[in-house]
């Protein structure tokens, strides 16, 4: 039995309606308890801001595509090298750090749970191997179904239950956490070098539309009672005028679940563009936020873009190709048979680029215009909008109008004509930030019930103590202090152990992989479905028996079980 008492913590714990109370937190064997004995180790938090461990509900940190980003960019690697020291491995990389680099840097920022935004099922083993080398955060993987042939065939047959059964089989086989749709239908079209422009374009050969795929899978997802909703990267990312497609997509979404949203729309910054070309691109954050404000069934994340060097990587292969033709730097693409695709290019977001300045403003506008912070979470689609190490600056910008104005003065002078950011006075508070970086994520992902994202008794003891006293700090004015506090915790506690102290990692750590297993009736077991098996064997290049991810890849399993209603 190990016990820890965190004293004098200034706690914000939105899920338990705690807002700035100074209290003690008792921890036993990794979980938060009522009280601990006198022998417990004591940490005096000195009145510092104490939050549940950070949760990133959409980031790219592990798997084929991420690793290819590292592989193709030795120049990014040398930009962020640290030496082997204490228990810390050497790390490399700035926008796509090594697994240890990701894990240490997230930990220094107080993050304890992260969700890989896109895992191709066929290559799931790879994601899990990298998870094992990401020791300080519990991990989850969004599983890609956007171009899944059996799913599209079920959609064409209007067979929601069959689609659900395919999802259930696949998630269990690959130890996936949630259903991810990246440019649904577009990734299959990309198999022929084509794309879909929005939700009503038919997918070549399969004769289904993105709208049908999205609607069917939202319903299937709820039949399976999965913890998280469908996680959608809308069609037509990054194209001027795409906000209409985004709003049209939101209009498809029924409200099916009282506990959480029915659709998580990710990196919406990239989907809220007005105009008809790069020449007249402008912000449509307002109508998009308006749509979100009217629909409790939708949660979005910002997909904030920050100026500087980074790497874009997504399952949206055709979009990356378009980006490559714009930037001409280097381009990787990886199509995955029967399932999906992906693309990678390095980018530099410049304050001299009006387009980039508009993008920067849109992300912030979304966070300021969506009224309920539970509906707009903080993320950069790491590393697409910016590497996650930029989160503290985003927090500063959201909390300080003055900081925004100062930044605004340094960017392209015409930006003001295209955006409304400079007219928005809202400044988010500490509680809003706590929601947008942990509580909201836990609720949206459906992992609050396994003890994530809060600090109540029974919660897993994942805690971040930031070296800042909120009563002595006016974030509007002292935004630099806010940014610096969020960059480096005083203590990051993971499962009841201090794992990071003042930015230095002090334990080797072992993570847990959280995945979803929805039990379906026997008649819906795709492993025994003759049609499914026949097509699998005919069109995949691996045998069905060799497809599922073995238990050896999940050293610490955090399976969330559910009973499907089929």
């Amino acid at each position, binding site marked *: 039995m190990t016990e820890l008492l965190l004293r004098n913590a200034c706690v914000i714990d939105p899920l338990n309606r705690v807002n700035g109370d100074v209290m003690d937190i008792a921890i036993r064997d990794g979980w938060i308890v009522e009280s601990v004995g006198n022998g417990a180790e004591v940490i005096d938090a000195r009145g510092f801001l104490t939050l549940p461990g950070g949760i990133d509900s959409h980031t790219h940190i592990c798997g084929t595509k991420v690793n290819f980003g590292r592989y193709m960019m030795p120049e990014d690697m040398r930009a962020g090298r640290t030496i082997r020291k204490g228990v810390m491995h050497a790390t490399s990389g700035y926008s796509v750090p090594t697994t240890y680099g990701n894990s240490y840097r997230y930990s220094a920022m107080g993050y304890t749970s992260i969700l890989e935004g896109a895992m191709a099922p066929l290559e799931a*083993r790879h994601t899990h191997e990298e998870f094992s080398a990401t020791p300080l955060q519990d991990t989850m993987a969004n599983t890609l179904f956007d171009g899944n042939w059996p799913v599209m065939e079920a959609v064409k047959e209007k067979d929601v239950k069959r689609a659900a059964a395919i999802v259930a089989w696949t998630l269990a086989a690959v130890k996936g956490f949630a259903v991810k749709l990246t440019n649904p239908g577009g990734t299959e079209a990309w198999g022929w070098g084509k794309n879909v422009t929005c939700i009503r374009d038919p997918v070549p050969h399969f004769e289904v539309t993105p709208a049908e795929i999205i609607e069917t899978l939202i319903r299937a997802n709820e039949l399976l009672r999965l913890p998280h909703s469908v996680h959608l990267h809308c069609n037509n990312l990054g194209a001027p005028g795409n906000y209409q497609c985004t709003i049209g997509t939101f209009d498809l979404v029924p409200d099916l679940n009282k506990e959480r949203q029915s659709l998580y729309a990710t990196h919406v910054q990239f989907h809220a563009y007005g105009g008809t070309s790069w020449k007249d691109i402008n912000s449509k954050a307002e109508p998009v936020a308006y749509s979100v404000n009217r629909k409790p069934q939708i949660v979005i994340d910002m997909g904030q873009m920050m100026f500087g060097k980074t790497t874009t990587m997504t399952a949206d292969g055709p979009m990356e190709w378009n980006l490559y033709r714009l930037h001409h730097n280097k381009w990787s693409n990886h199509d995955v048979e029967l399932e999906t695709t992906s693309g990678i290019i390095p980018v530099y977001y410049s304050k001299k680029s009006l387009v980039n300045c508009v993008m920067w403003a849109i992300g912030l506008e979304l966070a300021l215009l969506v009224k309920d912070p539970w509906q707009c979470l903080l993320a950069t689609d790491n590393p697409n909008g910016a590497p996650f190490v930029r989160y503290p600056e985003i927090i500063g910008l959201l909390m300080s109008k003055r900081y925004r104005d100062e930044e605004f003065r340094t960017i392209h002078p015409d930006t003001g004509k295209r955006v409304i950011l400079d007219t928005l006075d809202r400044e988010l508070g500490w509680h809003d930030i706590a929601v947008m970086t942990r509580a909201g994520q836990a609720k949206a992902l459906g992992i609050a019930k396994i003890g994530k994202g809060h600090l109540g008794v029974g919660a897993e003891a994942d805690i971040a103590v930031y070296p800042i006293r909120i009563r002595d700090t006016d974030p509007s004015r002292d935004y630099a202090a806010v940014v610096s506090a969020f960059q480096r915790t005083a203590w990051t506690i993971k499962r009841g152990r201090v794992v990071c102290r003042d930015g230095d990692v002090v334990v080797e750590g072992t993570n847990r992989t959280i995945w979803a297993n929805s039990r379906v009736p026997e008649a819906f077991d795709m492993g025994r479905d003759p049609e499914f098996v026949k097509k699998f064997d005919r069109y995949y290049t691996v045998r069905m*028996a*060799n497809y599922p991810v073995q238990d050896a890849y999940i050293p610490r399993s955090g399976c969330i079980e559910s009973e499907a209603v089929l």
Partner: protein
Amino acid sequence: MLLKDVVCPYCACLCDDLDVTVEGNRVTGVDNACDLGAHKFQAGNRLPGPVRPTEKGWDRVSREEAIGFTVDMLLSADRPLIYGWSTTSVEAQSLGIHIAEEIGGVVDATTSVCHGPSILAIQEVGHPGCTLGQVKNRADVVIYWGCNPIEAHPRHLSRYTMYSDGFFLENAFKERTLIVADIRPTESANVADEFVHLKRGGDYAVLSALRAIVRGKTGSIPSHVAGVSRAQLLRIGEVCKNAKYGAFFFGMGLTQTVGKYKNIRNAIELVDELNRHTKWTLTPMRGHFNVYGFNEVCTWVTGYPYAVDFSRGMAFYNPGETTAVDILARKECDACLVVASDPAAHFPRAAVEHLAEIPVVQIDPVVNATTAFCDLQIPVAVTGIDAEGTAYRMDGVPIRAKKILDLGYPADSEILREVYQQIRDRKKVREVKPV
């Protein structure tokens, strides 16, 4: 006993549909495998236990002594080289990389003499790739450039290209166009629809010319480029542009010839250019079983795919400087750990000579040419036969290789874990108590 869906441990095709019959802890039959794979299952020649040469001959040593010797050698070296990795599991490779990190050594893999140049090219321009099922289900034009799959990857044509029907091609053999480019008419060239007969070293110029042709800049192309007629180049340009889906495979005919990675860069840029017209992908025909697995794990651990120098405590990468052949040829390293490869058979003579001058430990199941340079050899199980573990197919698909026999040998990963642990114990690496 018949075991189904066994993964072949030979080449990076990682065929996973083998039927293997095991009787009395011995493989008695292999179905579906090519000749190369079948041979590997039935090869004997295993060393019974750790051995080292003495003046009187080769002596057996205990596992503990063997590990102790290895740890001593690595810890006392000023510039140790850790090399090999292509025929073992990702789990073992990962440990090897961590050992290099811990001791301040250089870690390199057989990649550097295989598709290392492909990686250098990808680092310049990226890689438009795919899994092999995309090719099987869609590709109507297939190019094999500087490779001879019939001899090197015998089932490649039947599983993924020429003879493999797919979702969008019901009669692949008739519907696909196969182009082979090489400096001689190989077995693979004999089955091609079109053979591009290049002069040696002409790949770069021919690929440049094709790029210009695909861009519509045909004007200044001379009548012949490295032995290939302008007419043929124009014809191939058209076939490529008119493909519904094209797949470009290449081998060591590009990576090992003059220009090295620049040849591959040119091929990649040709494929990029073709994507402006239709869909094309490119795949290196990686040779060894799990050579790509090393690149993957080395990348997520260190940031670089191979040739990583940890002597300063952080990862430094520069093929040509931190690659095994260069280090050995320059006699830079003062100890060498070889795992799952045979550099003495596969490196140029002068690079091998240095192995005779420094302490060498080899972890490998069989007696091979490198054994002659060993101060110690530790035999282990063969991954995919008597040890399981992850391997990456040439296209990046990870597959778990199975253990189908138990011959009593430890897996490489077990030996390496002990070595790593002892090194850390000796260096007193412990978790730090936070204050």
